[in-house]
């Protein structure tokens, strides 16, 4: 099975991290994992020992790098970036530099998504970019989409695991056909599938959980790219089953793939020098298709196109050189020199010997560019929803809006709660999914204080429970201890859900016990209260004061 690293399934975060690296590292120097750590941890984009900022980096440092979590997360990011062709290894595997393809991702003026899509399709294994050999000769994203299309547009996670991620060679039509036939059999007899899946796990010496972890990144990407969506299927399975369903966009991608000639690194290398022309042409086509202006290269592209048609009989070639070749070959094909100078690093675990050098490093780290704080967006989509109901009375607006949110899952609900607090004039940030340093789901930030928020969406639990209260306590303890953002002991920690707890007495008493024992205030809010407050703020142009909110304790009624 091909093992994708799992730095987190949030692709937006993956891209944001890359952009920040690009912004902070000179394009013409080599950099390493500690440089990545320095920039990403200090900016809070990845966690280090559960904290954020410069202090987090210094606290999380470990001479034993296998125990340094942010180092290992950077290692996984680096592997993904190299698979996507945005970064490459220089002479030494752990010396990186940006690629031309990476330049375009980071500097795309309008939208980098089209090019990012191409990059996901461009991933192929084995390749020389990562210097991986492996047992799987696959172009995983293309394979997943093609198999999905052949399987009536639906596949389960485990079907993806035993198929596109396990194919020895996805360019062998017989193997694919046999897989499709087998899956159809398995769907009629789940016991057969279980046996095949178990055999695969045993053969590879991995557990089901590990196999699942290897799919988190590609499945997150499929959703982010809009090629497949999660759904429950009752048409293809005996009982309702969680599947990934091909979207219309995914179908169009499959059509595009079917009309392209899929060439792998081995094929290209067999063409010798002519292979360089194919590589160059496919790279230029990739950029053109993604909306980049290559008019300055018009003549060269025309020549390359003629050569490609002459060799291959088609101009529709699927190959991405920056995702396949090693840096040496790329520098030859694209005629550039691999950087030799190294970035001057601020952070290195080797320099953490003395308190004095830590202080020096702390000052230096403070100079790293941070993304600018975005102003509070009060006129967000929640604001629009309320405005559209302006004719109604406040109570009716709440009654109209609440049912719309009752089916919201985590992501939608967290965003909604963030927007509601912003509408109230509070600086509320929703934590990106999968960033461990931000254990709270959202946080309201004031100049010298903050309120962490634990959110339970209605699909997680309709009525808030003691579990949310416990997590709110933990959020406060972590924030107080690690001071990722300024936080006063006296301000509360919020647990926000859909409906207030069923067992009000138990939850209320527990909150009082926590307050009297630990001096930690927890307030529990339901959607009714928040909607009423937010509608009032919009209608009367009011704001909610941070101080007032931060003093609330116990179950807050609408």
């Amino acid at each position: 099975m091909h093992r994708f690293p799992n730095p987190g399934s949030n692709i937006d975060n993956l891209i944001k991290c890359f952009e920040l690296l690009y912004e902070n590292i000179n394009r013409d120097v080599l950099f390493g994992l500690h440089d990545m750590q320095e920039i990403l941890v200090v900016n809070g984009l990845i966690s280090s020992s559960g904290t954020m900022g410069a202090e987090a980096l210094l606290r999380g440092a470990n001479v034993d790098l296998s125990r340094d979590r942010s180092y290992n997360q950077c290692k996984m990011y680096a592997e993904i970036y190299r698979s996507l062709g945005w970064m490459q290894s220089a002479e030494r595997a752990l010396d990186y530099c940006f690629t031309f393809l990476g330049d375009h991702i980071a500097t795309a003026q309008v939208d980098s998504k089209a090019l990012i899509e191409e990059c996901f399709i461009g991933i192929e294994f084995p390749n020389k970019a990562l210097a991986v050999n492996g047992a799987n000769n696959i172009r995983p994203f293309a394979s997943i989409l093609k198999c999905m299309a052949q399987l009536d547009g639906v596949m389960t996670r485990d079907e993806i695991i035993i198929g596109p991620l396990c194919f020895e060679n996805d360019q062998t039509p017989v193997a694919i056909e046999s897989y499709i036939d087998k899956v159809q059999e398995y769907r009629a007899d789940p016991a057969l599938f279980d046996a095949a899946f178990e055999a695969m796990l045993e053969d590879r010496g991995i557990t089901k959980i590990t196999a699942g972890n290897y799919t988190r990144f590609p499945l997150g990407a499929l959703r982010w790219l809009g090629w497949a969506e999660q759904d429950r299927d009752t048409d293809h399975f005996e009982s309702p089953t969680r599947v990934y369903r091909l979207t219309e966009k995914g179908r169009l991608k499959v059509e595009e793939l079917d009309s392209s000639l899929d060439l792998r690194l081995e094929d290209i290398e067999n063409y010798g020098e002519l292979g360089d022309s194919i590589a160059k042409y496919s790279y230029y086509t990739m950029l053109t298709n993604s909306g980049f202006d290559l008019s300055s290269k018009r003549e060269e592209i025309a020549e390359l196109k003629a050569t490609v048609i002459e060799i291959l009989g088609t101009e529709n070639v699927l190959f991405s050189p920056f995702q396949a070749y090693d840096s040496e070959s790329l520098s030859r094909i694209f005629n550039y020199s691999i950087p030799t100078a190294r970035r001057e690093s601020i952070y290195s675990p080797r320099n953490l010997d003395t308190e004095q050098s830590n202080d020096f490093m702390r000052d230096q780290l403070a100079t790293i560019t941070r993304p600018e704080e975005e102003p509070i967006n009060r006129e967000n989509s929640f604001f629009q929803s309320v405005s559209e109901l302006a004719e109604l009375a406040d109570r009716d607006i709440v009654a109209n809006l609440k049912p719309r949110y009752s089916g919201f899952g985590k992501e939608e609900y967290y965003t909604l709660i963030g927007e509601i607090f912003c509408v109230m004039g509070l600086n509320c940030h929703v934590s990106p999914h999968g960033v461990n340093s931000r254990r709270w789901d959202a946080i309201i930030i004031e100049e010298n204080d903050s309120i962490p928020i634990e959110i339970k969406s209605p699909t997680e639990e309709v009525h808030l429970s003691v579990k949310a209260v416990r997590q709110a306590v933990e959020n406060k303890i972590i924030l107080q201890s690690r001071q990722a953002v300024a936080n006063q002991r006296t301000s509360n920690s919020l647990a926000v859900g859909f409906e207030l707890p069923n067992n009000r007495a138990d939850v209320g008493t527990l909150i009082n016990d926590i307050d009297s024992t630990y001096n930690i205030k927890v307030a529990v809010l339901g959607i009714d209260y928040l909607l009423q407050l937010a509608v009032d703020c919009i209608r009367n142009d009011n704001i909610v004061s941070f101080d007032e909110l931060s003093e609330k304790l116990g179950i807050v009624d609408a």
Partner: protein
Amino acid sequence: MPEIFKQNEIDVDHLALPSNFEVASIIYQQHSSALLQFQNGVHVQSSCIMCEEMSCLVSNQNEGVLEELTLSQYNKLCPTEAIEIDETGLVQIDKQDCVGCGLCIAACPLGAIYLDENKLAVIEHDNHIFEKSENAQSLGCIGSDVYANPVIDENSELIESIIERIKLRGDNKLSLNRMVQNLLANVGVTCQLTRQGDVNLRMDGLGLIEEKTIVIEIELDTNLDAPRDILDDIAVYCSRYNESLDNVEGLIVSSHLPNKRTEYWELFSDIRNVLGLSIMNVTIAVLLMLVWNRRPINLGDCFLDRDNMSLREYTARALGREVGIATPDSLIEAAK
């Protein structure tokens, strides 16, 4: 008036050491009862004498933490009730129920119980030297200095088999809690189990050590829920029993320690930083090793966090020797 019938009594045949025989040393042996060496030079295999204390059956150390819990305590030693007196008047061990924890082996003052090849406890009744006696003989006079070697030599396979047998039981949570209760009592922590479903006492157990109340969570598989639960337990306990947080500590007893790369470890430092509250981590393996070596526990040395995720060093110190479990092993340290 209908007749009230009396139940038949079990006739127990008591045995006693011959007069003038004083135990010089007791040497535990693999797969057989201990070797008894007497001051007069005689040595024999030990066997059960149906002594007065019956310490292989009874646990009397489970009171004194919270009065209201005393009456509901489990007062047997064996967590799975595998050891009892049969109809012939002999102490017998039911192999179906035995998990091989060795509590009874450590409790028998004469070393008459041992683990067989299947890692299950067996009691020796084959008498080589003891004489019939009218009354049960007290063995309270046997001092701790006669025990020459550990009751059981530890290894990870044996400890894993104990945990696995507990896990496979239908009443695994109850058996686990009872085992931990008696292991803790054996290493010097008085421990009472709470009643299931009591919302005022949500913890699994309450312990007492040097005037401090220890709030105990007992887990087969540990995750972040354990520290979360214990915070909850302590808040409820302190508030309802008007106890100061300064007099309370937390203890998580688990079968294995979580991996290095979990948020679990950082949380203990955070809790100590912010609340001044220490939550200790002890594994069943550590408790078993201390019991098998007749050593007390020093809970203060069992505070683990992101800087120390291992109980190996402490255990070695407590045993006065290296631990017989290969490194790394989640039985005593965060292994991965």
